Structures are given as C-alpha cells and as structure tokens.
C-alpha cells in the first residue's frame, strides 16, 4: 500500500489553488487532513478505507483476459473491471475515500457535482453508507441524459439540485457546487469527482484511484508474467486515467494512452465559443479553471468554451493538472475517439464480450479498435464503468446512425422518452 508521499500543490507549471478567499481556509484544512490521514494513515484512516473498499465496494476487482478481443486484434487484451465496483464505475474509490475523510474531519454535510451521474451516485451511496446528508449538483442537460442515475441518487437519500446555467453540463455543475461550498464551508465537505480542482484534490483523488493500477500491475505480472506494453483509459477529468496509470508511471516501457472525447469534430467554433469535443489535452491550451492551472478549452480571450461529447462523463472543458503535466513531459500520450467510433465500440464490446461499457469507457475501446497495431503484445484497457446508465442515450444516438452490429433499432423507438 503506497500512497504519494508529498503534498506539493504543483505539477510542473500546472495545479495550484485558484479559489475565492472564503474557500482557502477550508482548502488548507483539507490539505492538513490529506497529509495526516491519507499520507500518514493517522487514526488508521487508510486501513479503514481499504476495508470498506473491500467489503462495501467489492475490491479487489478482476483483471480479465478478453478472449474474443484478443483473438480479433491478435494480441493479449486485458480488461481491468472497474465496472464491477459497487455502483458500476471507478467513481466509488474516490467518493468513499472522500466521504470517509470528511467524517474523520468532523464535517456534517457532503456536497458534490456530477456529470454522467456516476460520481453523484457513488457519493450518494458513500454518504448513505457513512450516514452523512448529501446534496448533488447536476446540469439540466445531464439530468435528461442520465435519468437512471438521478433516480439512484434520490433512492440513496441525496438531494439533486439542477443547474441551468450555460449548457447545463459538468462545467456548470462544478461552478455551482463551488458556490454552495463558499457559503457552507465551515460544516461541509465538497467531494470533487475527478483529479481536478485546487490542490490537494488532484493528488488526493489520484491516490484514492491509484488502487486501480496497484491491483492491475500485480495482476498482469501474475497472469502474463510481465508488464503490459500499453494501458488505455478514457479521460474526462482524468480520474480513472490517473488511477489506471499511477503505478505504471515509473515503468518506462509501458505506454500510457489517455483517450479523450473527439465529439463530432476536433475543430472549434470560435465565433460561438463552442468546442464540439472535450479534448482538452489534445486541443486545449494552458489556463486557469475551477481552482487549477491546467489545459482547458478556451477561446483567444480566455473565456471557457462549451464542450461536447456523446458521453456526459467526458463532457468537460478541463482536465486534471497532473495528467496535463504528464502529457507535456511526454509520459502520457493523449489521443481522441469521436462520438461515432465510441458508439460502435459500445455495441462491439457488448456483443463480443458480454460487457456493456459506459459510453465514457467505450472511447477507450474505440481507440483499441482503430490503433491496436501500435499497442504492443499486451494491452490493458481500464473498463471505467458499466453502461446501464447510458441505455436511453444509446437508443437515441444509435437510431440516428448506421452502426454495424447494432440491434435493429425500430423496435426501440420511443422507449424511455
């Protein structure tokens, strides 16, 4: 069990703490709690976290060899099955860690933002499990796209607050949660959902997610007898990416691919301030958003652009500062997969492996499909979540396209509307 050992607010030029003064004391308090409980295991925090990840979360999770994909692509494809984590996505690793930390800190209330609803669901579950009241902010557009998750949050006893600003997606939900926090900071912990935001969030969330690569590294050594040639993970904010990469970063022979949402196009509509993608590592520029200096989608003036992806969980104009740094130093390769290819991969994985992936995850499989020849003999794909939450979106999006191998869509028209 090895967590980071330092609490430096920067990753190269990236990171930092760009937040309103009212939040700074809370961030310093959190920094202190992170160092004591997470890095130094004070009061046995890490032991309790591990135990709950096992008993409540279901860890460790398998590294499964995907036989038909391996055959199709002529190499060993292994799947890290985060979709089997309680709640259906990697998000619980972080949510459980932070809600538990809030409890150790004596906080009385939990707030969080969510895009795909997976982080909101995980936080609502962790809050119910640990008996803390919880409110979740979610963009109106995402509420429509992700109804099953909204209901799950409510079932677990959380309030869901719709956010109508902007395009009603993750960016707006994060801003709104920060506003709530600025008013309630003395009693409330903000469980941020990815490796983004002001220090110490990017490090802390990475540490909670690093269990993915910790397990995967041991498992691949055991199953394949050596380290993989490449690891693929989809990147929205970048938490499953950083989690899947962390313990491989110092293994120079392992290529790390962060697969971003190429949306409908990689070009940008400067006039309307819209990027029809969410590829902030591949096409973004350096700037300050939501508390950190990182790579963001912005126009020439520095206004943040509206992003787009068929998957709500990738639909964000920023990305974690550590991931941006690893890209700048050449350790991580950023790549993109567009909406169409992600949908095709969604259907392919469902049919060939009996695993319905989240639309976010499907981007990683889209990249595998298009570029397997460059990925070496042993490839690990991080299955960041399962796709049950996406079925309504997939019915709608599939009906608008010709997708090889997709079920006949006519029968499903109108379902879930």
């Amino acid at each position: 069990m090895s967590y980071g050992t330092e609490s430096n607010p920067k990753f190269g030029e990236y990171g930092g703490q760009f937040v309103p003064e009212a939040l700074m004391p809370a961030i310093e308090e959190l920094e202190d709690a992170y160092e004591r409980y997470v890095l130094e295991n004070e009061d046995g925090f890490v032991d309790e976290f591990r135990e709950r990840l096992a008993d409540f979360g279901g860890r460790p999770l398998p590294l499964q060899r995907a036989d038909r994909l391996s055959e199709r692509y002529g190499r060993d494809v292994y799947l890290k099955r985060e979709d089997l984590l309680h709640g259906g996505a990697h998000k619980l690793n972080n949510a459980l860690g932070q809600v538990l930390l809030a409890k150790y800190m004596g906080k009385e209330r939990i707030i969080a933002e969510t895009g795909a609803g997976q982080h909101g669901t995980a936080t609502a579950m962790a809050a119910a499990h640990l008996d803390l009241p919880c409110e979740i902010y979610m963009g109106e557009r995402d509420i429509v796209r992700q109804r099953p998750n909204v209901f799950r949050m409510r079932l677990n006893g959380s309030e869901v607050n719709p956010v109508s600003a902007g395009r009603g997606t993750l960016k707006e939900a994060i801003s709104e949660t920060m506003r709530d926090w600025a008013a309630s900071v003395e009693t409330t912990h903000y469980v941020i959902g990815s490796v983004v935001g002001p220090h110490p969030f990017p490090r802390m969330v990475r540490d909670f997610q690093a269990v993915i690569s910790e397990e995967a590294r041991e498992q691949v050594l055991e199953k394949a007898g050596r380290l993989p040639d490449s690891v693929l993970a989809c990147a929205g904010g970048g938490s499953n990416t950083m989690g899947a990469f962390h313990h491989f970063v110092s293994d120079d022979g392992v290529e790390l691919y962060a697969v971003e949402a190429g949306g409908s196009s990689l070009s940008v509509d400067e006039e309307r301030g819209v990027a029809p993608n969410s590829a902030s590592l591949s096409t973004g520029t350096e700037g300050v958003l939501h508390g950190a200096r990182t790579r963001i989608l912005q126009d020439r003036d520095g206004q943040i652009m509206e992003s787009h992806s068929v998957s709500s969980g990738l639909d964000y104009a920023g990305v974690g500062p550590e991931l941006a740094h690893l890209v700048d130093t050449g350790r991580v390769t950023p790549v993109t997969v567009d909406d169409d290819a992600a949908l095709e991969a969604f259907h392919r994985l469902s049919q060939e492996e009996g695993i319905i992936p989240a639309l976010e995850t499907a981007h990683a499989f889209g990249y595998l499909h298009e570029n397997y020849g460059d990925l070496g003999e042993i490839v690990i794909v991080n299955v960041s979540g399962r796709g049950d939450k996406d079925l309504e979106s997939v019915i709608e999006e599939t009906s608008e396209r010709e997708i090889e191998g997709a079920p006949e869509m006519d029968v499903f028209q109108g379902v879930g509307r």
Partner: protein
Amino acid sequence: MTRANSAALAAAFEGGPAFVPYLAAGDPDYDSSLRYVEALDRGGADVIELGLPFSEPIAEGPTIQGAVTRALDAGMTPERFFEFVSDLDVSAPLVCMTYYNLIYQFGIDEGPEPFVERSAAVGIEGFVVPDLPAEEADPLREACDEHGLDLIFIVAPTTRGERLERIREQVSGYLYVQARLGVTGAKADVSDQTSESLDRVADWPVPKAVGFGISTGEQAAEIVAGGADGIIVGSALVDIVAEGDGEETVEERLEAKARELKRGTEKGFEQRTPRAERP
C-alpha cells in the same frame, strides 16, 4: 494611513467614507452600460468597480451571473472592455474586477503583465481578482507595482492567522472585507460577521471597504458607523439594470440608488464621529 500605488485610489478614501459601486461592463449592451456607469458617477461614486465578464464567475451569485451572461452575449471581450473604459466619462477612479484566466491569457507574452500594462494605459487604477489568493498573486502583484496600479484583496469571514498576514503583506489601495460567507447577492440585513471581520484588520495601513449583500442606505450607514472606510455594492445595482426601464429609466433609478447609498455612508460617518471631534 494609506498604502497605495494609485494616487487617485488613495485620494478617494481620504475625504471620508467611500461609496464603491460595481457594474458588469457591457450589461445589457455596450451603450446602455456606458450610460449606467456614468449615472453611478453622478450619484456620488467615489470608486467604481467595473466587472470584465468571465464565463465561469465562481464567486458570484445568480444576480451577477445574469449580468455577466448578458454582457458576454452582447459581445463584451477584454479588447472591448478597454475601449469601454476609454469611452467612459466619469470622475471616479476605476478598478477592474475580473477572474485570473482573462488577465493571464491577454497578450502574446505569457503572464499578467500585458493586461496590466494595457489597463494602466486606459486609466484603470487597480484590480480585484476573486479567484486569485495571495499565494498565487506574485506575478500580478509585481506587474501592478511596475505600472503603479493597486491589487485589492478580499478578506473573508473565514480568513484567520497566517492567511491574514499574507494578505496584509500583499494588499494595496483598499481591502475588500467580505461581509458574509457565500457568493455575491443583495441581502436584507447586515451580517454580524462584518464587525468581527473589521476588527481583525483594524490596524492595517489600507482603507477597509465592506461588500457582499449591501443594498440600502440604512445598511450602508450601519456598516460605516461600525468602522468601515467604505462600502461596495454590486447586486443591488445589477438588479436595477436587470429590471430595465419602467416608469423611471434605469439611469434615473441607478443615480437615485447611488445617492441613497452615498448618503447612507455619510450618515454612518456622522454617527461614528462625535460632533466635537470632527474637523
């Protein structure tokens, strides 16, 4: 008693308590906004905080978010903002309130210097940057010192200990004392966090202006009587802009509201200073 780079800002606080209104530049459109800011000047503004709209205003409540959105939709940009400042005909010194990304992205050179240089050239006297805490402020602070502008910091009700010291070392022009936790927005009462916050900074060598939630002359009087050197009012004025013209025009109502708030500060000052001791 004043640590300031800008003589105009220092002077604004010398003659008694200052009334500092805020409006978002370009809300709801360029030409109306020019007239609205000038109405505040006529109504007695001592310093005007002009918002340069940013797409993610995380420190603002719904009222100012609305203003920012209207201004952006009407085409406000940093370039247009500088034009706007040049076009304004006001006697009060101007402070630019914006978020760090806009300052940082301006110009070809990386960093805040080109933005500060340009601001100085059009007559801006200082900056309020709500998402730039003292820890991250060195580059902007240095550029401000070089160009003779002030960097105004916000002290929140939660600010204590070492953080207070760090801000005290950095602040110039005036200190923005945040009256209550949360985001901007007009409130009906004066928070009791205000006097505690003022007490913590009482001996600092800059004037203290209190903002967040003030909307009436009575509140202004109460806050100045409690020891503030000025009051900052944003949302209550933006509300008037958002309502639009009615029986009276927005300009008329803004000017009247400005007079009410300015008179409030004067009344508060009289209550504070016993007659015999007044100069």
